[in-house]
């Protein structure tokens, strides 16, 4: 039962296990972290689930209006973002692999790459939001651009409201994820992770993949309704 309080500024020994005091074995610590993370991800599924359920209800009620919104969505930017996120998932899993192999150089490299992809996603998303604002497609705050199908202008606001809520919540999770990656980067730089201790990398990796998967659902549901008819 090793106490692992490391004074700030000192270099921990290589292959340190970092067992916290209340766990009996590193395996128990890892099991607890894994179960905790998966449980947390279940709460996230239900968090987004509230919006997906609302989406399902209204898409069922106003299918034509929902389909008419597709021509206002920028499929190219949305598709690019999908590709960006899939790449970021790859680099994230490579980062986990590097941590497990005690390969600090690769770990840092892949963490930075993942962060670059994450930031790229947010920048592209920002351009999309900006375009929506300019075109007057923000329900409640700036809604004047829905001119092609005036008969759907009311019900389409529901879709756009959900669009901003769902992608906004997703983007917020991305921002949190990039913050967590920054934390990992600092830790990796300080040589905290090694083949015996890589739980934080793996757990934050799980979170990152989850956020990516949410987008995999958001993209077709929000951008491609009209295209799928």
């Amino acid at each position, binding site marked *: 039962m090793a106490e692992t309080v490391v004074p700030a500024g000192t270099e921990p020994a290589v292959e340190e296990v970092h067992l916290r*005091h*209340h766990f009996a074995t590193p395996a128990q610590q890892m099991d607890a972290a894994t*179960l905790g993370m998966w449980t947390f991800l279940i709460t*996230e599924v239900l968090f987004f689930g509230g919006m997906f359920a609302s989406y399902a209800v209204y898409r069922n009620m106003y299918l034509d209006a929902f389909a008419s919104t597709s021509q206002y969505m920028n499929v190219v930017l949305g598709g690019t973002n999908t590709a960006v996120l899939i790449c970021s998932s790859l680099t994230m899993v490579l980062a986990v692999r590097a941590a497990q192999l005690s390969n600090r150089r690769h770990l840092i490299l892949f963490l930075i790459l993942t962060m670059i992809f994450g930031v790229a996603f947010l920048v592209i998303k920002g351009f999309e939001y900006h375009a929506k604002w300019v075109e007057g497609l923000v329900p409640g705050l700036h809604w004047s651009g829905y001119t092609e199908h005036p008969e759907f202008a009311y019900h389409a606001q529901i879709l756009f409201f959900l669009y901003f809520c769902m992608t906004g919540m997703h983007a917020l999770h991305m921002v949190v994820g990039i913050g967590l990656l920054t934390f990992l980067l600092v830790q990796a730089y300080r040589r905290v992770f090694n083949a015996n201790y890589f739980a934080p990398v793996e757990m934050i990796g799980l979170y990152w993949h989850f956020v990516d998967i949410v987008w995999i659902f958001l993209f077709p549901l929000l951008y491609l309704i009209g295209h799928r008819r």
Partner: protein
Amino acid sequence: MATLAQRSPEVEAEEVNYLNVEHGWKSWLLTTDHKRIAVLYIISITLMFFVGGLMAVLFRINLLVPEGLFSAETYNRLFSMHGIIMVFFFLVPSIPATLANFLIPIMVGAKDLAFPRINLLSWYLYIAGALLAIYAVVRGGVDTGWTFYAPFSTTYSNSYVLAAAFGVFTAGFSSILTGLNFIVTVHKMRAPGMTWSRLPLFVWSNYATGLIQVLGTPVLAITLLLLAFERIAHVGIFDPNIGGDPILFQHLFWFYSHPAVYIMILPGMGVISEIVSCFSRKRIFGYNFVAFSSMAIAVLSFVVWGHHMFITGESMYTGLAFSILSFMVAVPSAIKVFNWTATMYKGSVSFDTPMLYAFGFIGLFTIGGLTGLHLATLGTDIATHGTYFVVAHFHYVMVGGMVMAFMGGMHFWWPKITGRMYPEAWSKFAALIVFIGFNLTFFPQFILGYLGMPRRYHAYPPEFQALNVLSSAGASILGIGYVIPMVYFIWSLKNGPRAGKNPWGAAGLEWQIQSPPTTFNFDETPVVTEEAYNYGPLEEIVG
């Protein structure tokens, strides 16, 4: 459990324990010890309980006269803030965040919860949420009721809905983190030999509660967020102006808030199982049934939310399905009541204060539960929905059930938490006062509701005055019943006789360690060789 120690109050000088190991406010505010966090929670939820109670005092005063003493506006804000504070800032965290936080690691034989820092984070989130709620109160309160129904909450109410909603949102995450911590702790931190079928039932019921907290609360969070966005943007998915459906808000809200009712009762049931077994000196009757009834309640709790909406725009067939499902929840609840009574049968029942609260719980919860069946019946519900019958029903479950269990649990484990005994006579007296005051407050409300008095109105026809005065009088007695324990609990901290390890001669790992426990609970990890509730005759244990 061979080493149960004797009651030996004089011997102990001040041993090192979790309370005196460190001093100063920093050692409390930065602690990761589950026991200290539990104490922080006890203090905070007690404060919120008295804030919520103050609201109740004020509106019971208002209801003394038929025309009401305050304006309708003031009254609406009083009962809304009473509900919000009592539900989200007292009942939901009441037993899980305090007693369970303190006891679960000890009961499973661990040094701490799986994630001690997340445990502390949950307390800070609770405090942040509570401050937002207090801010809403100070600025003038909320008048939507605790249910925040749209479109009133999103569009028409000009009270502090956003502050209260964000307060509840924040406190929700504290609840999620508590539940998550319990689930992982029960799965991964059990001592050698502590199999699932040896877990104390208190752990089982809090595990089931954890599942509900983890699965339900995120839905409330997103619902309140959508509500807040709609209030800010003046348009949204609950807005009928653009084709939105306010009923959807109710579905999402009750998808959490009905399971939340079980967050507010399951931990209490766990406390009662411990107390009944200890003070009957008998193994709990039908351990497996009691354990699995907790799980059954957790599962069924997610499929009954529609019974809150029988008269608010649900199809007859949906109503029928929800009605049948709601009846099914009564089965595991009844199993528990029957098993507690069967445990007492031919047991050596003693009437210590915790047991008095347990008796109160069983009786009052049974009334609350059975009247729940009236409300789950479609036809009866149409007549009684929105009347004081509903108010009386859920207060019998929430106050008669959960608060009774909380008080019983506090009296049962107070010697463990503080190392001191409280005055026996005073505590029995207070338990009696609470029972009398409670029934005097809420039984008249059953009659009022049956006669047709609607809830949430500041005024009422004169013929209802006698019963309302009775209810208000009962509330003042109930209030006294809650203040007396406050006084003697605080008094006992300095002046109570030392409790020793096991003042009740109770089974369970928590009674084998010193009172108050040391920071890491156990000197060495215990090895469990027996089932829970292995009660023999009292002499064998206490001697």
